[in-house]
């Protein structure tokens, strides 16, 4: 079994290491080539997961596989040539991430699975609980939000922005996020600006900087994120806006 795993590891390495490094560096810049890279190295990710779980991912270890895929992606993002060959680095990253994940999961160790068969009538624990969820309603909602998000994504694509890029561009510091809220409030107070954004496909940076008191450079730096979040507050994206409005008292107060 072990030998088999090793063979699996070696299988997707037909290229020289330099080729992989070049691919990885490409993936750092372009989310699509990152996806391609992960698709190509999925067998490697599987084998690394197997080394950790000692069971195939299909036997209840899908989560680990997903974590491992993300760890591989993280490794690709943080890789540079100084760190040596990419694959050992990625294997190390995957292993660490899986260990972290297991430690976090162990906190739920005291609970039992809903799948466990309980009682004498052979019913699963899950089935004994009262079904409070409206499955059909949830399905409808999901379909509606899916349609809305796809429309949103299409509109973003007309600005040459993808969701990945928005996520990369999203402010990480509280202070910067607050500044972005200020810009958003300014735009919501002046619907003309939002309209201009939709029509000209350009962020009215000067007006927003003047209206919100946020530095022009900060706005420029988070342009993609601001375009996305401002677009979400134009007409038509009720579900997304509803999702945001639940927790944006800071954002909604000023209006």
């Amino acid at each position: 079994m072990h030998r088999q795993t090793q063979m699996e590891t070696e299988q997707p390495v037909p290229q020289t290491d330099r080729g992989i490094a070049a691919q990885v560096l490409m993936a750092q810049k372009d989310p699509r080539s990152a996806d391609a890279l992960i698709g190509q190295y999925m067998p490697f990710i599987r084998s690394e997961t197997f080394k950790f779980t000692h069971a195939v991912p299909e036997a209840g270890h899908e989560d680990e596989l997903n974590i491992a895929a993300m760890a591989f992606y993280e490794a690709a993002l943080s890789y540079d040539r100084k760190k040596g060959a990419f694959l050992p680095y990625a294997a190390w990253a995957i292993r660490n991430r899986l260990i972290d994940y297991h430690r976090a999961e162990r906190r739920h160790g005291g609970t039992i699975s809903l799948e466990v068969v309980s009682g004498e009538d052979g019913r699963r624990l899950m089935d004994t609980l009262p079904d409070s969820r409206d499955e059909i309603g949830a399905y409808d909602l999901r379909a509606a939000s899916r349609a809305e998000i796809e429309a949103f994504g299409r509109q973003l694509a007309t600005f040459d922005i993808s969701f990945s890029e928005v996520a990369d561009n999203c402010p990480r510091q509280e202070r910067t996020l607050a500044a972005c809220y200020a810009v958003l409030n300014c735009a919501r107070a002046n619907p003309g600006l939002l309209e201009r954004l939709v029509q000209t496909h350009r962020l009215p940076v000067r007006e927003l900087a003047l209206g919100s008191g946020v530095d022009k450079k900060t706005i420029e730096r988070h342009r993609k994120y601001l375009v996305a979040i401002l677009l979400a507050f134009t007409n038509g994206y009720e579900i997304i806006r509803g999702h945001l409005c639940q927790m944006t008292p800071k954002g909604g107060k000023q209006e």
Partner: protein
Amino acid sequence: MKYLVMEIHPAYAVVLDESGRFLKAANFHYQVGETVEDVVELRLPPARRFRPWMAGGLVAVAACLCLFFFGYYRPRFIPYGTLRIQINPDVELSVSKNGRVLDLQGLNEDGQALVEGYDFRGKDGDDAVEDLVERAIEMGYLSQGGAVSITASSEDDDWQVQEEQALGAMLQEHYGDAIAVYLGPAVPEQDTAVPSASSTPAAPPASSVPAASSPVQPVYPDDDWDDDDDDWDDDDDDDHDHSGWENREHHRYGVDD
């Protein structure tokens, strides 16, 4: 916190949290439009920016360089003062603060001849002066009853005085009465510019000789001095081309006569 799944990729999903952040998180078979509660966020590599420890390192390196420069390099390799030896050969040494000889020049032809082939590198100022006086004796510039004038000059007056006294004492100790040692700024204008000395013949000796602290300080009666002055003029006219030191020697012996 609830997250709305915006986009799915093989390795991650882009989710929108309720405070408007777009995040990348592990994709546990999510579907677009789904609302999920716990996500495993992607850890982005830390941006390469200026880190405090780097600043500390830079400061440490700068401090080391400063220490090296001010503590080692400057006292050793930056000229701090000059020592000038006038026998007949006229020689000037550049000396660093801790007494190391940095440069050696002959200021007249005899001086150049004296300096020729003398390796001063790494030598101490005192040793170099001693060696040069010895060489002068060997080469016949200095003989019994001759005189050496030593002048230190620097921005630092204390250094100047100390250095002169130390050198004077050293030479006195070595050669005793065989040679006379003069200290202090001896005839500074005269020897560098002989023609100018000739144009104002009376003035420089009058100012410089009393200032020079010679081992034998002749006492002049006031009347004699005036007479002397006349003699001195004659003397000076006779030997234009001699260095200032010669003049002084003449003067001294002239007075004694």
